[in-house]
């Protein structure tokens, strides 16, 4: 018996729950057909009795008896068919899991964005405002003639604020790109070319895209490629990497190979596990082949439309 056979859809009547746990449910389809078959046989028997018995009262009583039995068997049989959710059970569970992953994933990403904003641009801008506030105070005391002001110091403050504002702009731009890289609007190929060009390890790009995947798939593919190339730079010590993107029927395949030290694994709470989860949200798959000593090949397969 498969695990999914245990699946009990919520909000069932007591009767249904008893039946679902019973032996009969395991062969529900068989019993449904048997009962429906028996129902039709009983209908036939009823008519034969009626016609063959020349509509005598006795024949009518028997026929009525058969037809009642037939109605019973048919209704139970069709009811069995109606409650048989097993083919969907496994899928429902998969969807429940992937939806939970999706919710966790987006919550985690929002938290990360908030953290990045809080620690980065937001703090930076407060510091800028602080410096400008201080500079204003100093300049005011100069115009009021209430105090001596070191103009060099004011210049220093304004200069520091200027630098801070520019840093904040850079941080905001990086963050915005992390949320949705604008280059992705021009297609996955262009976006991946930009990504490959930015990589510290030389990347050979092989793109074979016959049609445009849906936007969600492009985004996931892009972030997978970005993360995998970052892994190559950070962990593999590779001198060369290949990024392949290709359409295979119904699927978009992203593959990153490197000639580094290997030994990459999908570990709980690791980067690859995070990727696998994100890929799983659209029913995609992530496979890692990375023997010690390399080479490492990570393959991500995504449905081309989701």
């Amino acid at each position, binding site marked *: 018996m498969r695990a999914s056979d245990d699946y009990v859809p919520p909000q069932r009547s007591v009767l249904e729950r008893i039946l679902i746990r019973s032996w009969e449910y395991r062969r529900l389809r068989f019993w449904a057909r048997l009962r429906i078959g028996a129902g039709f046989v009983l209908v036939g028997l009823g008519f034969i009795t009626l016609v063959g018995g020349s509509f005598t009262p006795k024949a009518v009583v028997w026929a009525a008896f058969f037809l009642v039995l037939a109605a019973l068997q048919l209704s139970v049989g069709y009811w069995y068919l109606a409650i048989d959710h097993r083919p969907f059970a496994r899928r429902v569970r998969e969807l429940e899991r992937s939806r939970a992953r999706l919710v966790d994933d987006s919550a985690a990403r929002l938290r990360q964005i908030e953290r990045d904003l809080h620690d980065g641009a937001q703090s930076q801008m*407060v510091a800028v405002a602080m410096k400008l506030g201080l500079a204003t105070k100093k300049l005011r005391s100069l115009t009021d003639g209430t105090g001596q002001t070191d103009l060099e110091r004011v210049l220093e403050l304004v200069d520091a604020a200027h630098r801070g504002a520019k840093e904040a702009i850079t941080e905001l731009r990086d963050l915005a790109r992390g949320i949705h890289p604008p280059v992705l609007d021009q297609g996955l190929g262009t976006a991946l070319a930009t990504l490959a060009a930015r990589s510290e390890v030389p990347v050979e790009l092989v793109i074979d895209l016959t049609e445009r995947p849906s936007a969600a798939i492009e985004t996931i593919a892009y972030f997978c490629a970005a993360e995998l190339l970052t892994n190559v730079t950070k962990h593999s010590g590779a001198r060369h990497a290949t990024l392949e993107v290709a359409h295979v029927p119904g699927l978009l395949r992203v593959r990153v190979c490197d000639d580094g030290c290997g030994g990459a694994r999908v570990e709980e709470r690791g980067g690859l596990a995070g990727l696998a989860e994100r890929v799983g949200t659209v029913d995609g798959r992530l496979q890692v082949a990375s023997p010690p000593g390399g080479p490492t090949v990570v393959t991500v397969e995504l449905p081309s439309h989701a």
Partner: protein
Amino acid sequence: MRIVIAEDSAVMRAGLAEILADSGHEVAAAVGNAGDLLAAVAEHHPDAAVVDVRMPPGYTDEGLRAAIAIRRDHPKTGVLVFSQYIETRYTADLLGAASGGGAAGVGYLLKDRVADVEEFVEALSRVAAGGTALDPEVVTQLLRASRRTDGLGMLTARERDVLALMAEGRSNAAIAGILVVSDKSVEKHVGNIFSKLGLPPSDADHRRVLAVLRYLES
């Protein structure tokens, strides 16, 4: 004033130290997490501590908890808590600590307020002197959340303005300056507010604040 700064962002820490030093105050220590803050306060016995709510390791409310601990263990040290957002729960915790300890010496400001250097330093001085400094945002939230709409409804618009400023921790003179009215008319408004809300009149700034807050919270 001798001041201890606790703020995890190095940029902000340096900026705060600069502002305070420039305003003629002594920064006894500038630390980056709650544990170091408690140690620094125990070592330096500062007049006030400026504390960021979110600090390592958990980045949740470490600073707030440290602030409450400081109010409890070092009654002479005022605590000015500041953060990027005003959280109603933090306000409640802080003010609970303030009135529970029988003294004020508590402030809660948005980080943005640091940009108005003079106001920020003034708020810090108020807290160090045992007064209160609440962000206008905190006051707005309290006014909005207040279940005591009955009494508030009886106040005139001007009296509400005065009430909000009082709740921030301002003195009569400061309120007069902000609203551009005479000290006398502020006194009259304050008297009206106290009598309409049924609060005992009092002079000390922080006691006024606590009276107002207790009224708003009850």
